């Protein structure tokens, strides 16, 4: 039947023309712009003005550039966390919950570290947050390797459970006794992350995020563990045949992933908020999945995607303030960009032919 009429078809190609690769991000940006401009018109704003305020204006002054780095900090950490897990094809969608696990640890430790100097308190915060994130990731990881329970579903459900734990803490034992707000007491000044640049919010958290990117690069490209992870990611039966302990590799990847997501929570509590609050994360854990994918699971890509998404978050606040376009434009832009780019990437691997 198909042979009787001409139609468009995807044909696999291994050698895409040289001009395709650099074209993809450009086309993805244009595609995203077209999709989101409908929303901007709905908000009765001019798409070109909005896009200028959204993506160009934040780059024009020092204050907002530093703020972009602040906003990209949790995104880098969550992107790295997801990349570790996805590299071993362990689909950890639970970075959101693991982030809050780290944040709870940081807020808890920060409240008892008053008599401890910063040189001791800060390492304790970091290690504690890492362990908490790991612990929260342990349950679905064990269920996966021991009982073959699908990790996508369990990590998602664990996010919902964590949201209730945070709410229980903030409405119960940790409710601020002075203000009555649902937020924990302020952490000890010695447990707060120091600022890198004076009169900005840029802090130690950003350095931790950059270090996590370097570790990701080293582990994936320079260690035998990274090689094992990628082998498992490419195909479990083949990896098993090659003598790799698949369960052990997945378990380790899952725990490292959870720990790094936990660090994102520590960085937000110790570097920015100094309290545990319910709205600590605006879906950073889920955005981490987008970032890991757009960054094609490598450190350089993850770093670049995180910085760009940091700009999108900063720009969305600007347009919300100056033009009255709802701040959720940022979230829509990020997810639309993911979907458009994924579509474009396939153009790289397939050519459209009439046949």
């Amino acid at each position, binding site marked *: 039947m198909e042979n009787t009429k001409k139609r468009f078809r995807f044909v696999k190609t291994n050698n895409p023309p040289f001009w395709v690769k650099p074209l993809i991000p450009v086309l993805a940006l244009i595609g995203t712009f077209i999709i989101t401009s409908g929303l901007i018109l709905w908000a009765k704003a001019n798409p070109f003005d909005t896009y200028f305020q959204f993506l160009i204006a934040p780059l024009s002054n020092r204050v907002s550039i530093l703020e972009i780095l602040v906003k990209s900090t949790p995104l880098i950490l969550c992107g790295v966390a997801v990349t570790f897990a996805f590299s071993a094809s362990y689909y950890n969608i639970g970075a959101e919950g693991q982030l809050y696990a780290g944040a709870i640890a940081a807020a808890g430790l920060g409240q008892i570290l008053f008599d401890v100097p910063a040189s001791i308190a800060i390492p304790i915060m970091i290690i504690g947050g890492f362990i908490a994130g790991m612990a929260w990731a342990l349950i679905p990881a064990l269920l996966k390797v021991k009982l073959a329970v699908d990790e996508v*579903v369990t990590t998602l*459900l664990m996010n919902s459970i964590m*949201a209730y*734990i945070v709410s229980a803490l903030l409405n119960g034992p940790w409710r601020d006794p002075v203000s009555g707000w649902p937020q924990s007491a302020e952490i000890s000044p010695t447990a707060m992350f120091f600022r890198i640049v004076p009169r900005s919010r840029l802090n130690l958290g950003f350095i931790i995020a950059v270090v996590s990117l370097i570790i990701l690069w080293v582990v994936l490209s320079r260690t035998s563990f990274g090689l094992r992870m990628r082998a498992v990611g490419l195909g479990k039966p083949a990896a098993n045949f090659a003598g790799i302990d698949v369960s052990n590799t997945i378990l380790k990847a899952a725990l490292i992933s959870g720990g790094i997501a936990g660090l994102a929570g520590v960085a937000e509590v110790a570097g920015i908020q100094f309290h545990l609050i319910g709205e600590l994360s605006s879906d950073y854990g889920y955005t981490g999945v987008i970032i890991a994918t757009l960054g094609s699971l490598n450190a350089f890509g993850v770093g670049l995607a995180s910085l760009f998404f940091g700009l999108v978050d900063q720009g969305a606040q600007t347009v919300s303030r100056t033009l009255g376009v*709802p701040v959720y434009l940022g*979230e829509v832009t990020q*997810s639309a960009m993911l979907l458009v780019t*994924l579509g474009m990437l*396939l153009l790289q691997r397939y050519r459209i032919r009439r046949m």
Partner: protein
Amino acid sequence: MEIFLVNLIAATFRVSTPILLAALGETINEKAGILNLGIEGIMFFGAFVGFFAADKTGSLWIGLLFAILSGVLAGLLMGLLSVTLGVNQHVSGLGITLLLTGLSLFGFRLEYGGSSTPPSIEPFQQLTPLANVPILGTLLQQYAFTYVAFLVIVPLAWWILYKTRFGLHIRAVGENPEAVDAAGVNVATIRYSALAIGGGLMAAGGAFLSLASLGAFSHGIISGRGWVAIAIVIFGNWVPLKCMFGALIFGGANALQLRLQALGFNLPIPYESFLAFPYIVTIIALVLAGRNASYPAALLKPYRRE
């Protein structure tokens, strides 16, 4: 005690309805070989579109219609990504959830952001057959949604999947798309149809919350119910009737915590433990069902004719 139990059972059916609709939609998707993680966002979008359309037109039915249409469109978008373009299903589904969540919140802020009181509409009324009969009257006092979900959609989904040619094709593209293709049936068309139907059901589940049980829309309206529905599909082993029992277990756990809260039990544990309880039950159910789970063989695999 008797009144408590009767109320609990009645509430169980009410609370299970949105999860059941979504789980049936997801079952049809996964039977065709597509894991649709867009479910959470499609439910959220359905809840928003339904509310918005009902509020603007003054008709709950038009609201419901638009909600279902929005779900169908979202299902087709998932088809474009996962079927035509062959993108990783985890990532494309999650991307759709984030996109639709963002779109709904954008629209909600734009249209209702200025009002100080949360906007609400006059929701669907419950049906009250045999209202004068003591126990039966309470049990039967349900929304039309609930009746349709349990008495029409569950048997219909089973009938379509197992007794029709179309259902055979759906199950076959989820198990062995090559064979379906060789038999001269278009794999993509079947998968797109399954995604459209599934998306419509998910959105209807979301719209039940905004148009019937709440009469309002809020940020936390879905709060993970889509993820629970996915767990229920696995627990129910991709069989509509078993999914119904799964949905009732979650609904029962949820109804129990709502009843206990309403009775004002002064327990030494925070009320959030009751809210988290159904999610924990779902994970345990998943573990118990895990060993016997028989995933559709072609799940997560895009089909390409080589």
